């Protein structure tokens, strides 16, 4: 329960890798949150996968104590956010818990797509924004030029931008002082009925479901009964605490404070982020506005490589979803891949991360089908439904119309790569809506079909711009389009999990490319294998894997039958990892082919 005037709540926002988590490290160090020996770099990135990839996936909160120039000790609540576009939902949520933002810009790189996107989110959220020019320890840093660029491109006042090095700590103390001086203190009424925002929830191995809250009015303390206004459920508060960054139990959380509670909640699905807590005994009249739920935009099927692992996959998905409420899953059965799940994600990186966490944290071997988006379908009977899985696409004669999701993409790219970037967007059926310059960098906005973006857009954008282009997008409605289902047949039988929805104009080329790729990936078998791509009933491409000619152990000596048995047993095990399709064995790598197709 801190005096409101002595609280500052802020989010650190930036483009990916501009140094948010490193800046958080220095602040924790300076404020004495952790001893030197407890520090690791990017200490808030606590998941293995975050540490390995050097990126933040989940926003983290820390309460810091800072003695300002006025001699008073302030409570600073810091929220470190992820930079990647897939996790911008985490950023919006974090912003709702704060009054101000530190906009970190890498002074060697300048303004990038997510710098813009996140800065706009902060400004729209009514935040005071303090620009910070990071990495000035590097020789290639150009703080003055970048300062000007922030004004020109982002359009905010950067006169008092702070030059710092999050690495060496230079200038970080000044940032702490600026937070106190320039950000507004939170507002709130200590005497009013409890009103607190449910910012996030996750599962902790020791404490169970933990809920991150921001208190607006009143108090949250142990023992009181609270009501979640949206869901209408009630719970007794068991613990109230803050992160320092270690968990620390506190007496109560009052207006303007950020912290966590636990309340004998078994399942994260019982908590809806954005909901409002109030006290059951004395309820607040109006809930907080909350936020829109996250919508998965990319879908794919996940199947266990070894079909015996299905139950384990189900359990692992359930556990993982306790920590990541933004991915969705439901059981699915595929003729080729057996039992598995259709899962929805916020984007391709999110997909990749969930898949990797399943494989590593739960030791599962997975087969993922090509990612796809959600189509709106209207049948000739005028029924409407959402198509999440290309395999479920009805017969073309039964379809009246298909709408596909579009996005609005902002791409920032150095001048010299603009040509290829425009060509790529054009090839991906894009419509240019704007093109402006900031010095030698171009900012292009395009409308693009999301289906093209999940295919291979991001990888190609990176490679044609040598990594210099940055990319941000948001959904921008649905639009009718001439889409068809491209099916793959192996020895004449359709393989449902290899089918995809593509634009009519690209279907044939895509079909040919996929057949070729599969030809390389399907090992020779005892008999020849025909691979065909078909649109509707019409075959548009065909390749053949010729029959194996030689596969026999030459020497078989000294009666060592046991050794030959081992070889046979190895083959049997190998077979378990293949999918028997008709008479053809398809290694599960082949199913990734559709996904990786654009890479060469």
């Amino acid at each position, binding site marked *: 329960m801190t005096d409101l005037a002595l609280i500052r709540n802020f989010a650190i926002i930036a483009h990916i890798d501009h140094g948010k988590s490193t800046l958080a490290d220095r602040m924790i160090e300076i404020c004495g949150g952790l001893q030197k020996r407890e520090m690791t770099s990017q200490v808030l990135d606590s998941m293995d996968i975050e540490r390995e990839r050097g990126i933040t996936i989940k926003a983290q909160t820390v309460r810091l104590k800072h003695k300002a120039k006025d001699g008073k000790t302030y409570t600073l609540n810091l929220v470190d956010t992820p930079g990647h576009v897939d996790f911008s939902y985490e950023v919006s949520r974090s912003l709702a818990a704060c009054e101000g933002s530190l906009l970190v810009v890498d002074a060697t790189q300048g303004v990038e797509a997510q710098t813009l996107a996140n800065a706009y989110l902060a400004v729209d959220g009514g935040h005071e924004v303090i620009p910070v020019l990071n990495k000035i320890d590097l020789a290639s840093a150009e703080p003055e030029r970048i300062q000007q660029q922030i004004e020109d491109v982002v359009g905010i006042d950067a006169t008092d931008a702070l030059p710092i090095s999050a690495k060496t700590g230079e200038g970080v103390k000044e940032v702490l002082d600026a937070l106190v001086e320039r950000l507004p203190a939170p507002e709130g009424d200590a005497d009013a009925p409890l009103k607190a925002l449910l910012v996030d929830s996750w599962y902790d191995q020791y404490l169970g479901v933990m809920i991150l809250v921001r208190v607006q009015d009143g108090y949250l303390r142990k023992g009181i009964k609270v009501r979640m206004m949206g869901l209408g459920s009630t719970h007794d508060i068991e613990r109230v605490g803050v992160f320092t960054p270690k968990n620390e139990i506190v007496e109560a959380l009052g207006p303007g404070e950020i912290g966590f509670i636990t309340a004998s909640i078994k399942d994260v699905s019982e908590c809806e982020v954005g909901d409002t807590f109030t006290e059951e005994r004395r309820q607040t009249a109006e809930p907080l506005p909350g936020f829109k739920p996250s919508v998965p935009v990319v879908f794919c099927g996940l199947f266990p490589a070894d079909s015996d692992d299905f139950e384990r996959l189900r359990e692992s998905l359930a556990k993982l979803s306790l920590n990541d409420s933004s991915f969705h899953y439901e059981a699915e059965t595929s003729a080729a891949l057996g039992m598995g799940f259709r899962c929805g994600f916020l984007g391709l990186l999110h997909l990749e991360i969930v898949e990797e966490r399943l494989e590593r944290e739960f030791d599962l071997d997975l087969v993922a089908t090509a990612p796809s988006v959600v189509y709106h379908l209207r049948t000739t009977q005028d029924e409407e439904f959402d198509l999440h899985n290309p395999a479920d696409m009805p017969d073309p004669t039964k379809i009246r119309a298909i709408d596909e999701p579009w996005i609005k993409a902002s791409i920032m790219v150095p001048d010299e790569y603009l040509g290829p970037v425009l060509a790529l967007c054009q090839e991906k059926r894009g419509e240019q809506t704007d093109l402006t310059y900031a010095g030698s960098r171009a900012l292009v906005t395009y409308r693009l079909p999301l289906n093209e973006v999940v295919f291979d857009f991001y990888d190609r954008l990176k490679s044609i711009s040598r990594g210099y282009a940055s990319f941000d997008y948001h959904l921008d409605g649905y639009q009718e389009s001439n889409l068809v289902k491209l099916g793959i047949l192996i020895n004449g039988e359709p393989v449902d999990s290899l089918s995809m929805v593509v634009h009519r104009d690209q279907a044939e080329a895509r079909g040919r490319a996929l057949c070729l790729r599969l030809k390389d990936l399907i090992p020779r078998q*005892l008999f020849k294998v025909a691979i065909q791509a078909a649109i509707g009933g019409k075959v548009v491409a065909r390749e053949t894997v010729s029959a194996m*000619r*030689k*596969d026999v152990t030459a020497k078989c000596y*000294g*009666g060592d*039958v046991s050794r030959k*048995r081992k070889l046979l047993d190895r*083959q049997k095990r190998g*077979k378990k990892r293949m999918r028997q399709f008709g008479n053809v064995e398809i290694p599960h790598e082949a199913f990734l082919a559709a996904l990786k197709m654009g890479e060469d």
Partner: protein
Amino acid sequence: MAETRKDSLAVYVHWPFCLSKCPYCDFNSHVRDSVDDARWRRALCLEIDYWAEQTPGRHVGSIFFGGGTPSLMAPETVAAVIERIGMKWSLDAAAEITLEANPTSAEAARFAAFREAGVNRLSLGVQALDDTALKFLGRQHDANEARAALDLARRIFPRFSFDLIYARPEQSAAAWRQELSTALDMAAGHVSLYQLTIEKGTPFYTRQRDGEINPPGEAHAADLFDITNALAATAGYSAYEISNYAKPAHASRHNLAYWRYQDYAGIGPGAHGRLRTAENGARALRQHAKPETWLEAVERVGHGSAEARPLEPTEQAEEMLMMGLRLHEGINLVFFTERTGLTLEQAIRPGALTRLGDGGLLSHDGQNLRATDKGRNVLNSLLSELFA
């Protein structure tokens, strides 16, 4: 082809020492500064006693001294082993007694003594007929020594065979045709022609992984195999097994016992056996592989057995098919059921027979099941199709 008696037993004797280790070899062979001949002789004889006790009264139809390099054995040891086998079991008068020999001149000097000891068939590890290839294979002999050893073997032994390794890195079809024709001219009824296999754990394996050597790919290997069969056939040699070629009545009786899944006892380090006894049923037997471990075990307890595992009928069926389908003659189905207690249909995956038959990989004439020429070329995959 030579018929064998029902109770006939084949005896394999392993000599685990070589002068040097060839870079492709993953056999149980070891290089040692010196070997105590008398001690080894005693141990081999002791182990013969052990296995003979478990299989009393059986007739031994063949003995095979394999290695390693058995031509490094003292002829007295070879003589003692043969004598002991005759004493403890009963040795057929017409028993085939083979010894593997390396063609260096030092070893050739002992051929007469081996013959004297009772060896009536010599199997020479020629491997190649060109000096560059022999060097590449890390062999101790050159092509001239190989020819001399062959000439000597022809004079001393009633039967002899030799081994070649082909499908070597960079070996062209033309070069192999040439080499094989020369070889067939020197052969006397039997040759073993092995495609080079790169085995895990050998220097060749590392060199292949590092891209230093490039063994032929599947298509070239298949072509070389076809050439081999065609040339051998023209010279009157039929491929009675995947890598073994013989003129009528020259097939190796001992090796046929393995492929026909008849009983065999394994004596010496790392030797394998398959024995059926009234007491224990069918068992898979394996001796300690490391020479010293085996030797000490025999001296302590009278045998070097490391494993004696009962074989389920389904395992026997699998093994019998794995071995028997290597043979041109295939598997006698009456014998199969007698041996395993299972019908063929019970032993394999449903539908596989029809599928492989329709695809021209297996043939089935009611009496015998055999892999066709095409089927034998892809036997590993065919087997995995039969069982998995």
